């Protein structure tokens, strides 16, 4: 595990990412999306269906976040949900009911381009079957204004593995990218061993990082740990997002990963989402953390 970095440090480090250029090396899809500054929004770990003292406002928190995104002066190019849209249940019908409900609520976003990733609560009990019905594939890649995005599924396997077949796909996808093309990986679990004692890892994440480090400009955005964390593994920056249901303690800071207690004096403390301003020509990403208003 690499050292934690501050946002300012990250901005400084990423400034060394080099310039992007449009050339014949780019594939057709990339040629159709020239490098251009843009921003997108990351929301994570909604756990729709969760009820309990850690969040007495569980039914309103997501709606508040969506209202905040809709109130932004300029809509983001797209919104990405990095997993755990629903809280797990053994009841397949209830799982689908929660997914249908959360999909309807998300439909209130005034952004039409929405990307979804699964979390283990969504996908690990049925290998992603219900999630695919409601939100589409669990792994994919796309290009946006000069940045290549790769969504990696490390949750459909209940063991928190990416699996060889997907790793091969990842390597092949990455091999098609020019070395000057910034790459952003979207996933749920940390790809590195953040804190395996709390299952904050991907069992074969090291293999994914080995693949990713063959490219000079890779940044990872993920969820799962219900808090911000900024870590470097070599030249790869990994940024986790806050949750929209409850915060979890810092890695290893408490005997158990018990949710941080709701504070009536400061409701929604520790919850939030982020916007990410991308400057593809500099391979630079500015992160802005947003809270939830009471």
């Amino acid at each position, binding site marked *: 595990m690499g050292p934690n970095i501050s946002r300012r440090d990250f901005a400084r480090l990423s400034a060394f990412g080099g310039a992007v250029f449009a050339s014949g090396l780019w594939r057709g899809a990339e040629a159709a999306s020239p490098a251009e500054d843009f921003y997108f929004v990351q929301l994570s770990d909604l756990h729709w269906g969760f009820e309990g003292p850690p969040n007495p406002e569980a039914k309103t928190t997501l709606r508040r976040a969506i209202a905040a995104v809709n109130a932004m002066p300029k809509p983001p190019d797209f919104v990405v949900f990095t997993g755990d849209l629903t809280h*797990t249940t053994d009841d397949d019908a209830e799982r689908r009911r929660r997914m249908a409900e959360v999909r309807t609520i998300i439909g209130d976003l005034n952004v039409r381009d929405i990307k979804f990733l699964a979390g283990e609560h969504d996908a690990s009990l049925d290998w992603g079957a219900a999630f695919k019905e409601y939100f589409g594939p669990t792994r994919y890649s796309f290009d946006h204004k000069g940045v290549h995005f790769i969504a990696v599924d490390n949750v459909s396997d*209940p*063991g928190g593995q990416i699996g060889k077949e997907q790793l091969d796909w990842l390597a092949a996808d990455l091999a098609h990218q020019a070395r000057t093309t910034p790459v952003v990986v979207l996933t749920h679990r940390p790809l590195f*061993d953040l804190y*395996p*004692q709390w299952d904050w890892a991907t*069992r074969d994440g090291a293999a994914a990082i080995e693949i990713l480090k063959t490219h000079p400009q890779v940044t990872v955005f993920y969820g799962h740990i219900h808090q911000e964390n900024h870590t470097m593994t070599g030249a790869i920056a990994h940024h986790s997002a806050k949750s929209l249901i409850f915060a979890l303690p810092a890695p290893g800071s408490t005997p*158990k990963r018990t949710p941080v207690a709701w504070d009536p004096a400061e409701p929604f403390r520790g919850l939030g989402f982020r916007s990410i301003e991308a400057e593809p020509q500099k391979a630079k990403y500015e992160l802005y953390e947003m809270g939830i208003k009471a």
Partner: protein
Amino acid sequence: MRPLAVTTALLCLLGIAASAAISSPRHIPVKATRFFYAPAVIVVKAGETVVLDLTALDRLHGFDIPDLHIRADILPGQVTEIRLPPLTAGTYDFHCDNFCGSGHETMAAKIVVED
């Protein structure tokens, strides 16, 4: 066979049996079920070699001791043996690393190694 040879052979067999008894590790049964391990605390002696006989009672579970880099799947209907190396005194936490439902995050236990 002459009496002396018989006696020698018997002594050899007894020696082998005694040696096996001394060196054979202690087996400790551990049951895994949502969202517990039983026992929740496994006590062993420092330097002792033990084998955990892991059984899942309901569905696939996992067994992961990150500090020792030991992990295994625990499948229902079969015993998964984990041979622990001789350990120094301390506490070694383990947890389920195969997602098993609401409560999975709390499925953990520990091995306490005493001097």
